[in-house]
């Protein structure tokens, strides 16, 4: 095995190297560095769960349709099943584990509880990260655009209405605080 050079190392030093082997990389998740050993084919979601032990991010369809694995990469919501872990080096990754401060839940988490925005909970981490990314980018997002964006993820329990209510209520609270 050989280690991937830190970001910014000229590619000429890497030419001709094959990376089918296991490689050691660093992922920065919720502000903490994780040194992990991955194959290039390992997706970000599998690496977060299996190597970093962060099982809050759920792997659902594993082909980019359901949105359960949504995490934030440099602030943008992305499907963690459609990104390889080696591509996530030197990026700021945020997962559901990073939302609460100690025992104090993030307003979105509390709002999902208050508005019954979850039942089985499988899709919830993905919806929370999608909503976090959107509200941080656009705190005043309109109802129509919010609906369009929440259509990105699948929920098979709630019928979506309570998720929409929860995100709207959290958005109002986050704007006022």
């Amino acid at each position, binding site marked *: 095995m050989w280690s991937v050079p830190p970001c910014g190392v000229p590619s000429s030093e890497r*030419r001709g190297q094959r990376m089918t082997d296991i490689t050691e990389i660093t992922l920065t998740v919720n502000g903490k560095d994780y040194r992990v050993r991955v194959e290039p084919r390992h997706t970000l979601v599998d690496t977060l769960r299996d190597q970093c032990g962060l099982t809050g991010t759920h792997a659902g369809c594993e082909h980019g349709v359901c949105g359960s694995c*949504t995490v934030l990469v440099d602030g943008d919501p992305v499907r963690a099943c*459609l990104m390889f872990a*080696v591509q996530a080096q030197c990026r700021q990754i945020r997962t559901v584990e990073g939302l609460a401060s100690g025992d104090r839940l993030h307003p979105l988490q509390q709002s999902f509880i208050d508005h019954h925005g979850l039942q089985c909970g499988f899709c919830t981490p993905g919806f929370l990260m999608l909503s976090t990314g959107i509200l941080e980018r656009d705190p005043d997002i309109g109802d129509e655009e919010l609906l369009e964006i929440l*259509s990105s993820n699948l929920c098979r329990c709630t019928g979506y209405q309570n998720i929409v209510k929860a995100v709207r209520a959290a958005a109002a609270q986050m704007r006022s605080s």
Partner: protein
Amino acid sequence: MKPGQFAYHAPKTVADAVAMLAEVAPQNGRVLAGGQSLVPAMAFRAALPGHLVDINGVVELAHLAADAAVLSIGACTRHAAFHRPVADGPLGPLLSSVVRHIAHYPIRTRGTFCGSVANADPASEWCLVAATLGATMVARSTRGTRRIGAAEFFGGIMSTALADDEILTETHLPLLVAGTRYGFYEFSRRAGDFAIAMALVAYRVEGGVITEPRIGVGAVEDRPRRIAEAEAILRDEAPGAELFRAASEVAAEAVDPIDATPDGQEYKRDVVRAAVRRALERAQGTAHD
């Protein structure tokens, strides 16, 4: 549901990227840009590339800039870049009206314009834009640089004029002159789903009649294309509901849907008829004169 093994390469310059691709293309080497189509195909093991040349770290390819005549879209420009108008005149808002139909927001933060064009899915919105507006695709390899017009570029379902060792480094879209009216209409069963049919139209009105009409149809044949017979109906005529209806009828007859059954083909023609008419009506709505 897990991708197969591959060797990973992460060049930082276009020169390095094309050199690496030239080396690995004979061993089923592929370019990885946004990965929003390639990686799902790899998860299904429908794609088993031996090598991936990841161009996300190539800063030269992240550009998105317009000069007086052309919008240059670099290979790493994400769909999400088009949520707000990126060019002066009607082209910027046209692209913004189209982008919201591409998959979902978390796909648009990663997927790229050029990746979609190179993937050549018949239902790709950007392929329809490229075919309708007459884009030029710029392909780079160690053998040099080629410019390929849309008519030659699209070769059928997931098939283009790109050679295995070529990278689509940028797409050039001609800017639309002030006063160009445009309309896009897509029909799909669910938000973010693949189009069943879609139409993009653009035209200008001079002296009360239509000039330079463009009518493009996608997701129906094996590649998007302009429908010359329907454009001919519009040319030199005054815009209006009856004319739009006539043009949409001609478009529906002119297309050759790839659906296997006669019922499926007839259904596609019905959707084309509605999509073209509604796109033309939307174009009428963009008139500011």
